[in-house]
């Protein structure tokens, strides 16, 4: 294993160090890979790695150096094609980003995350984000976050297979109601 000199503080890599770390890995900060790495490392707090997490992370990925890790990145990304894997990852980042103190995730952060993570996976992503900004304007609960993934997989292109009694969160009910006329008007065009 390796101790990479990203440590400022003895036991933690903080934001700045993290930035450098990612730079060395060749990852942009806005890339989903940063989150993937965080996930694989089992990081607890957004924006920092503990020494333990760092070391264990490398170990579990069977990498000895940064270059190894860099090479491994594509395969990590590919792993996410598996549904179950992706779901774990998806649920992880909610907790990761919101932090341990609150129960909900700030709306803007959530939107950003979604744009990164659910791009190409959720056909109504743009509609969803505009809906939230227009109507909801509050933080996102864990329940909503988790169920949105299921929703994205379940809903069809015209939203006609939505089940009112399907125990979806009220927010998603409202979204479907709000979005359906917009979709049909788009279709007409």
């Amino acid at each position, binding site marked *: 294993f390796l101790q990479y000199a990203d440590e400022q503080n003895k036991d933690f890599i903080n934001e700045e160090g993290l930035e450098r770390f990612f730079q060395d890995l060749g990852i942009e900060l806005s890339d989903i890979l940063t989150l993937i790495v965080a996930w694989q490392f089992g990081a607890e707090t957004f924006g920092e790695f503990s020494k333990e997490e760092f070391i264990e992370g490398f170990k579990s990925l069977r990498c000895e150096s940064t270059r190894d890790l860099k090479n491994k990145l594509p395969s990590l990304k590919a792993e996410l094609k598996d549904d179950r894997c992706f779901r774990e990852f998806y649920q992880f980042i909610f907790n990761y980003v919101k932090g341990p103190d609150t*129960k909900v995730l700030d709306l803007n952060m959530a939107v950003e995350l979604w744009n990164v993570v659910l791009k190409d996976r959720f056909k109504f992503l743009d509609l969803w984000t505009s809906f939230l900004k227009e109507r909801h304007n509050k933080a996102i*609960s*864990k*329940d909503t976050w988790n*169920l949105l993934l*299921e929703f994205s997989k379940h809903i069809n292109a015209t939203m006609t297979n939505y089940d009112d*009694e*399907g*125990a*979806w*969160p*009220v927010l998603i*009910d409202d979204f479907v109601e709000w979005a359906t006329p917009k979709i049909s008007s788009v279709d007409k065009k």
Partner: protein
Amino acid sequence: MNQKKGKIAIKPFRTQVQMDPKYAETTWNLLRGAISEIHKKNASGLSFEELYRNAYNMVLHKYGDKLYGGLKEVLEAHLDEVAQSVASAQDDDFLQVLNEAWNDHKTSMLMIRDILMYMDRVYVTQNTLPSVYDMGLSVFHTHVALHKRIKNRLLKLLLQHIQNERNGEPIARPLMRNITQMLVSLGLNSRSVYETDFEQHFLSTSSEFYRIESTHFIDANSCSDYMIKVENRLKEEMDRVQHYLDSGTEPKIKEVAERELITTHMKALVDMPGSGLVSMLKDDKIEDLMRMYHLLGRVTKGHDLMREVLENEVKETGKQIVTDPANLNKENSYVQALLNLKDKYDNILGKAFHNDKNFQHTLNQAFEFFINMDNRSPEYISLFIDEKLRKGLKGASEEETERTLDKVMMLFRFIQEKDVFEKYYKQHLAKRLLLGRSVSDDAERGMIAKLKTECGYQFTSKLEGMFTDMKTSSDMMDSFKTWVTNMDAKDPLGGIDLNVSVLTTGFWPTQSSANCILPAEVAKCCEIFKNFYLKDRNGRRLTWQTNMGTAELRAFFAKKHELNVSTYQMCILLLFNSSPNMSYKEILSTTGIPIPDLKRNLLTLSSPKYRILLRSNEQDKDIAEEDVFKFNDKFRSKLFRVKILAVVQKETVKQRNVTQQKIDEDRKHQIEAAIVRVMKARKKMEHSNLIAEVTKQLQSRFRPNPIIIKKRIESLIEREYLERSKADRKMYQYLA
């Protein structure tokens, strides 16, 4: 010659008595002649015994064929002749002639049968042929009834007679009866002849007849007249069947008549403007309604149609009452109108519809519909009861009270938002109890008992608590008074007669009590009471509810008067003891009464009705900051005792909104409590089942909106009381 032993052998006759064909022929001719005579009604000269013997011999000697066949031929020939004579009869006599021929035939057949009885028993059974009599019947059938000049004429005449009778002409019923019975008999053991040759035609012509008649009737007649005519026609047909048709026809003609007279036209009948069901209901035409109920009850969907129209009518009427602006502002007329409507329809239901359960159900649905259309119904009903318990039932007998309250309870049952009613009832009851306004304690308790029966203990436990508090307080006042007299100081209360009601917080409707500053003399008394109370009851906290109290002031104008006022008003008025003029600002600061209450009370006190105070600015409707008030020593009133208390009023829109908010809050908690209760018991539950179960539990109080239930579920998930199952998003699990 041989020598034979001389034995005599006795041998039986070798020759049997054979009937030789010639003899058979003779016998047959004899019989045939006899039959002929019988046919000519000339039987008296015949010897039964001889004929019987002859027939017997023939059969015995195996000439049964000849006998049977011969008989058939004879009958056929004879009946052909008969047919000719019947056919040649005029229309007028036709049936009569046929009837006679039939009777003659029967008579002669009987005789013939008797003669040929041996053949019937032996030859016929051996060869499974129709019996003599039956054979006679079928020959009559084929040769007479089906004769080409008889068959159709017969039918035509029968139908014509019936038609004539329907048109009011009398006809010969016995004759008709005989003919129809003849037809039945001709079918041997079935009704098939009767049916084919008569009944089916009868039914189809009757159907046609009634179709036309009913169409004319309904165009020319009012609903009730039409129904009377129908009733008569139906009775007539039943009568007809009984008198001269076969009984099997009864259900069939009934069906036809009912179909044409009732079913086809029932919609038009019911909907008939001016005389249809709706106008009958409006005008309480009991007899007509009863008739319609019976008539339409005969056909399928008849009652369904009635109920549909009834429901719409009641809903319409009810809706009008509920939305009528005249009623909206007078709660009493609103509720009274509803009660009147209920009475009206209960009456109709009982007298015209025989308390039919389905109709009862329909009425209930309709009532439920419009009573819940206006969300102020619960409030109004509570106000109505309040008025009755304060004034309306004064002097009423126990029965009358029971009856009035029972009627109101009936309306109560229809309310869906019973929790709203509870809230108002509590408020109104509190005022009644505290101001001592109840007309009768028994009536109050009676009302609560009824509510308890209807809604259970939970609903009324707080109300009963309120009663208990009043009783306890009254007892307590006695001991207080004793205690005061034993106090050291002379007249510690300063001549003030203090009366305290101690209210347990949980029972009484919560009001935000902004405390006002009591006048010194009053405050002193309150302190004394407080000490008295707390000395035995440590750990309790007393809060004076100045917004709910009352006072009696002795005031000196030109004459002495006693004023009944609220506590706030007392505070205001007592200020004028120290100075005749006070400005609004001064009053506000000295009494500390909340501004809206202060303004309201000042308005009341200076209003033209009770001009106890004079306002500097009489023109403005609202109190302005700069207003100054002066004690009006010229105040006059006819009564010694002047009541200035504002009685219970219905809420303003603003107040209503506040109440509604409180109710919504309460409901949220109730829903959550219900969800937790259910989940705790079941541990796991599927989404729609959970919603259904929660709704069921709460339905005696109000109808929860499924979306709200869903929101509550989500809130509980967030607070980690519940979680979604990992496997199935629709399944919830209880988290201990």
